[in-house]
């Protein structure tokens, strides 16, 4: 079947999609957006987290046919239009929150969603928000640092604006 939807603001079209195929597969293999990572395929790890109509979800658990005419925003869509890294992405780089990097795209989207609703989360709020994103390298401390840094920068930006 054919599936058409919006990915990071641009219309995309995927042909020959199998009816049981996931949105994650379509993003990675059919429309050239391999940022979202394929790890557990059962919603346990959060590496494939994307926005679907503004709500963060595991793209491995969304059937491709379900996104027809809807809006998807992936980790690629977190960057600035200029191509520079977005605020959350830069914070992860600056805090050294990336080791192997496989979990990073999901963490970036989930952190972006957290700060959009709660720009100044407590540590408990951060842990709860990221509880569906597994990282097997870092022990999470650098990730916590990165989210705190992104939070501080988000707040500073809001003040200066």
């Amino acid at each position, binding site marked *: *079947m054919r599936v058409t939807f919006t990915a990071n603001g641009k219309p995309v079209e995927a042909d020959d999609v*199998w*009816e*049981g195929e*996931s949105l994650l597969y379509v993003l990675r293999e059919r429309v050239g957006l391999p940022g979202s990572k394929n790890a557990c*395929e*059962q*919603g*346990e790890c*959060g590496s494939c*987290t994307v926005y679907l109509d503004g*709500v*963060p*979800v*595991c793209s*491995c*658990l*969304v*059937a491709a*046919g*379900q996104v*027809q005419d809807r809006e998807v925003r992936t980790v690629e869509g977190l960057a600035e239009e200029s191509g520079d890294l977005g605020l959350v992405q830069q914070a992860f780089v600056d805090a050294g929150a990336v080791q192997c990097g496989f979990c990073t795209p999901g963490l970036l989207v*989930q952190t972006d969603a957290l700060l959009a609703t709660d720009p100044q989360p407590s540590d408990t709020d951060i842990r*709860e*928000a990221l*509880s*569906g*994103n597994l990282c097997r390298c870092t022990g999470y401390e650098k990730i916590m640092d990165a989210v705190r840094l992104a939070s501080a920068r988000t707040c500073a930006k809001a003040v200066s604006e």
Partner: protein
Amino acid sequence: MEFLRPATWDEALAAKAEYPTALPISGGTDVMVEMNFDVHRPSAILDLNRIGDLATWSIDGDTVRLGAAVPYSRIIDELSGPLPGLALAAHTVGSPQIRNRGSVGGNLGAASPAGDSHPALLAAGRDVFVEAASVRGTRLIPIDDFYTGVKRNSLEADELIRAVHIPVADGPQQFSKIGTRNAMVIAVCAFGFALHPKSRTVGTGIGSAAPTPRRAVEAEEYLRGVLAERGLWESGDLLGTEVIQRFGELVRDAASPIDDVRGTADYRKHALAVMARRTLTWTWNDYSKQIRSAA
């Protein structure tokens, strides 16, 4: 495989009548796992995402009509007042991403004994109904008749779950669940408990400790009797350790768990008695406070 995308509820019922073996999908948090691992390949997938009604809820008098596809995250945000037990259960489901997609309709459709909604629905009382519909009409299935076996429910092949009718809480409710961590846990076992002061009854629900979610009937009857005989609904006085202990034992005895990878039968029975005592104590303390502050 077919991918069916009805735009309206009537179209969905027509599609389910035409393809009775079609697998309904909404949040996909169960269905897509089966698809990704090729556990199950249905003849057709019936996508319900376009039917906006399914993701709405309303309150009519003292009953909440919860659309089958209202995601857990919205139950937590919007319904923790009228449905405190279900909201607590919803908070233990998976992760934020899963709670953004998963719904009570999916839990009921899958009918896994480990589904987190079930103990809360059972505890909410006997006036909980699953609204099932087909091209033949709509029926309200009492929650006590809904679960028929491991991952089996009383839906007919041409029926879809449209909503769940749940009484608005008129007393404290609690939910407790055992797992290895707070997030991403399939319950080793779970327990829901509710006080219903208006009807002078209590509700229980056991999860992951029998072939189906089930009520601890004797425990409910025992506690109802004690509360009535001793005038405790009126006084809000202490229950006493003996009553709490006995309640825990009766809940434990109502379970018939198995040994599996998540835990042993003995552990589940022990844990259920502990959770029953705790949830009873928590809710009764809340109720006592309400009585005293009203006095």
